[in-house]
């Protein structure tokens, strides 16, 4: 590609590739800055996959999701931890400086925002819809189009057939189909970016329970797959192992300085470094640089369930460990005030993580877990971002921005969470599943559903236009989660991608 590019995209995660695809297709010259490189998930003996070549993943998972101690997660998030300079207080700053960003380790759970959830947005569901459809078709989504969750998950794009349901999830949904409907609660098949039919170079899921350790077939969508496709285009270039450290406006556009001291220029800049990464890059451009910025997240809770009918049953020999079922429970009549969640089976998840949380010795914990496992599942529930109350303070120095994040929840949230848990426990009971003690709210940020930093449509200097253009810096568009004006309880990744696609199309049109 001949220099200079028309557009520089900072970040190779789901947002970056989603913005780049329509631009590249429209013939624009796009230069993507990628903090990672062409590392591939290595194949090898199971223990290498699960514990790492140097056994680096052999460590307790610190009470969080077992996913984050996997070698793949460490490859994905390690460099970000070293670089990010974030001081955390009751908060876990999740980010990636690896090709593909957090999509390398995401859960693949997708759903569109409905009109209610978009009510505080400066854009309508109709405006987003073509982008949702483009993204769903590009990444490959499997699920059911005609159950009670189908409507809230949306109908954009073409759905692939869902993979076979796990036995415990099947037992729950069979009861649900037979029970009278609760107007506040809906349950259906989960919708996952998991392909059940080959798509390009990606192979359909073969149900080997390898999800947690990095799917060797590429059946779970991962932005690296799109980066590989983009690289085949002549008008796309990738700058690997380059981390943007400074953005500056020049007469003819924007200049990005990388860690290696390279200066790259383009008329327009698309920032897709992930919410925390973009926060750090963009905040110094606002005049005067803000001492605080808003940050939303989606408080998340896990709820272990046991389905007595399944006790003594067989563990499934095949399957996946992504979400089996999706559900939604309304909290209040306010628009978008509902919790969303997913039900996972425990086959394919590490038993040690469960046994460690049981109030028994290790041997008893393992044996009891094994005896219960065929009947166990875990529900995760996400609350809307309005219930988060985080404080971000920024200090500017020679070494860049120092970010301090204090995580928290809004007043009254604890009572709400208790009520929701009680209501859900009652609902599960009707569906033949019993909530075990030990439901716990995760530390803020664990959800990785961050946003609300540079809200679309906000008039303040840190706000952005409806196309993500920073009010304080024309020509700079932010396309990742940081521009979402609200964080819905519905998983945000698909929406981030659709929004980035929408902004990319807009920029492709205006040249």
């Amino acid at each position, binding site marked *: 590609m001949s220099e200079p590019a028309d557009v520089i995209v900072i970040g190779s995660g789901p947002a970056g590739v989603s913005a780049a695809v329509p631009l590249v297709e429209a013939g624009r010259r796009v230069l993507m800055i990628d903090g990672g490189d062409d590392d591939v998930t290595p194949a090898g003996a*199971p*223990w290498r996959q*699960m*514990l790492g070549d140097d*056994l680096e993943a*052999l*460590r*307790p998972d*610190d*009470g969080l999701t077992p996913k984050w101690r996997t070698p793949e997660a460490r490859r994905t998030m390690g460099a970000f931890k070293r670089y990010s300079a974030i001081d955390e207080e009751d908060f876990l700053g999740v980010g990636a400086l690896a090709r593909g960003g957090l999509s390398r380790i995401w859960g693949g759970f997708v759903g569109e925002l409905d009109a209610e959830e978009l009510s505080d947005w400066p854009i309508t569901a109709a405006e987003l819809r073509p982008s949702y459809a483009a993204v769903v078709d590009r990444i490959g989504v499997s699920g059911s189009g005609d159950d009670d969750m189908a409507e809230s998950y949306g109908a954009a794009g073409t759905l692939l057939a869902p993979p076979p349901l796990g036995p415990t999830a099947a037992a729950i949904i069979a009861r649900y189909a037979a029970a009278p409907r609760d107007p506040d609660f809906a349950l259906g098949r989960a919708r996952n970016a998991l392909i059940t039919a080959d798509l390009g170079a990606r192979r359909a899921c073969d149900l080997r329970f390898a999800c947690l350790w990095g799917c060797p077939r590429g059946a779970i969508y991962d932005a690296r797959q799109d980066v590989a496709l983009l690289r085949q285009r002549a008008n796309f270039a990738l700058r690997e192992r380059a981390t943007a450290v400074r953005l500056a406006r020049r007469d003819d556009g924007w200049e990005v300085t990388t860690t290696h001291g390279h200066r790259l220029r383009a008329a327009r800049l698309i920032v897709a470094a992930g919410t925390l990464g973009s926060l750090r890059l963009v905040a110094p451009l606002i005049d005067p640089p803000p001492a605080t910025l808003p940050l939303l997240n989606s408080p998340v809770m896990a709820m272990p369930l046991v389905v007595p009918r399944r*006790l*003594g049953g*067989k*563990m499934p020999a095949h399957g996946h460990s992504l979400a089996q079922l999706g559900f939604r429970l309304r909290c209040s009549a306010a628009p978008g005030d509902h919790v969303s969640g997913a039900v996972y089976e425990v086959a394919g998840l*590490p*038993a*040690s993580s469960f*046994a*460690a949380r049981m109030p*028994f*010795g*290790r*041997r*008893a914990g*393992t*044996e*009891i877990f*094994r*005896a*219960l496992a065929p009947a166990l599942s875990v529900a995760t529930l996400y609350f809307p971002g309005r219930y988060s109350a985080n404080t971000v303070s920024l200090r500017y120095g020679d070494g860049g921005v120092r970010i301090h994040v204090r995580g928290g929840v809004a007043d009254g949230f604890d009572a709400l969470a208790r009520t929701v848990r009680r209501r859900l426990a009652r609902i599960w009971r009707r569906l033949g599943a019993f909530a075990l003690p030990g439901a716990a709210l995760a530390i803020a940020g664990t959800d990785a559903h961050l946003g609300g930093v540079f809200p679309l449509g906000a008039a303040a200097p840190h706000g952005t236009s409806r196309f993500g253009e920073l009010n304080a810096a024309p020509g700079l568009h932010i396309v990742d989660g940081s521009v979402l004006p609200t964080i819905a309880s519905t998983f945000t990744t698909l929406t981030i991608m659709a929004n980035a696609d929408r902004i990319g199309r807009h920029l492709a049109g205006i040249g």
Partner: protein
Amino acid sequence: MPQRLVVTGASGYIGARLVERARRSGCEVVALGSRPAASDVPSIPWRLGEPPPLTVFADATAVVHLAHDWSSDRANGAGPGNANLEGAEALARAAREAGVARFVFASTTSARREALNAYGKVKIAIEERLKALPGSEGRIICARIGLVYGGPERAMYGQMSKLAGLPVLPMIGLDREVQPIHVDEVCDGLLALALDPPAGRHTVVVAGPVPVTFGNWLRTLRRARHGRRLRLIPVPIGFALMACDLSKAIPFVPTVGRERVLGLAGAAPMASAADLAALGLHLRDPARTLQATPVARRRLIAECRAMLRYVTGTRLRSPGAVIRLARVVQRDPASGRALPGLAVRWPALLRLLEPVRPDMQHGLSRRLHLAAMVAEVLPPPSQPDRAWWRTIASQLVLEGLALPFRLFLGSLAA
């Protein structure tokens, strides 16, 4: 042409190791006197005090004189009749006459005139005699070697290893400072002195740069080998000497020579950092190095096997899993004290030892968690034949039975 070394005492603790390392680095070695066992090193019969055959020195670059006649110390003390004195001097003279460029004498950090034992007195006397030889400048080097550990459990190291195996050890000189150095580091130092010595040094201290008390050294040995604490009881030297004599009479107790006890009582540290730097030696941390000794390794493997057996409830047929766990436990700074021997033999006893309140950051809970993680990488165990509720009920009963003991242990720890 390869450099040629003449080594005396080549079958000894240091000598055998030195020969091996010298040959690996491309030197030719001739053993003067006894030959290291199971080695094809050419050797020439000789005893300390005899005139050496001059042919042995042909084309030799250096002589490394390690041999020491302990019987002569016992018979003659540090007096002039000691064969070590004459022997060393005669050897040095012969080497010079044959045109050997360097003569390295293995001395000790306890070499001083006021030493309590004959060994220290003899070594200093040899040093002085060698120094007085004509043309000794730049040709004769005395290496004052510290407390040598590592490698095969022989000599002083062998004795200390045995002592550290006892649960309670009455010992003298616990607050004396010693300067541990690994046998391989000593060999590297001696080789450097023989082949490419730093200029202008007549004596060189080849010993640990940071002295540790003898008591702490024994504790380090015990922790590394047995993973436990060592209870030391300080003993006045008179009693110790009596005990030495008694130990010869009592079966199954390691015997300890008076000489060694007196050597300990008389040692004092010598500055070694500058000499080590001149020799290009960077010493390893003894505590960490000792962890890799075969005995410590065997204990670790046995513990890891026991923990895996406990968490899985089956005898694992995967040596790989045991080795992986050992690798992680060994390098994990938070993994804590060793398991009791009984629990290693009967892993089910670990149920009694687990803390009631698990702490993933420390100790046994953490190691068992690591073991569980290692185990789950293996193919899953076949589904139990027992009904699920029987499994749960029996585990709950066992947990209930173990709980009082675990609470008791927890209160002890607190």
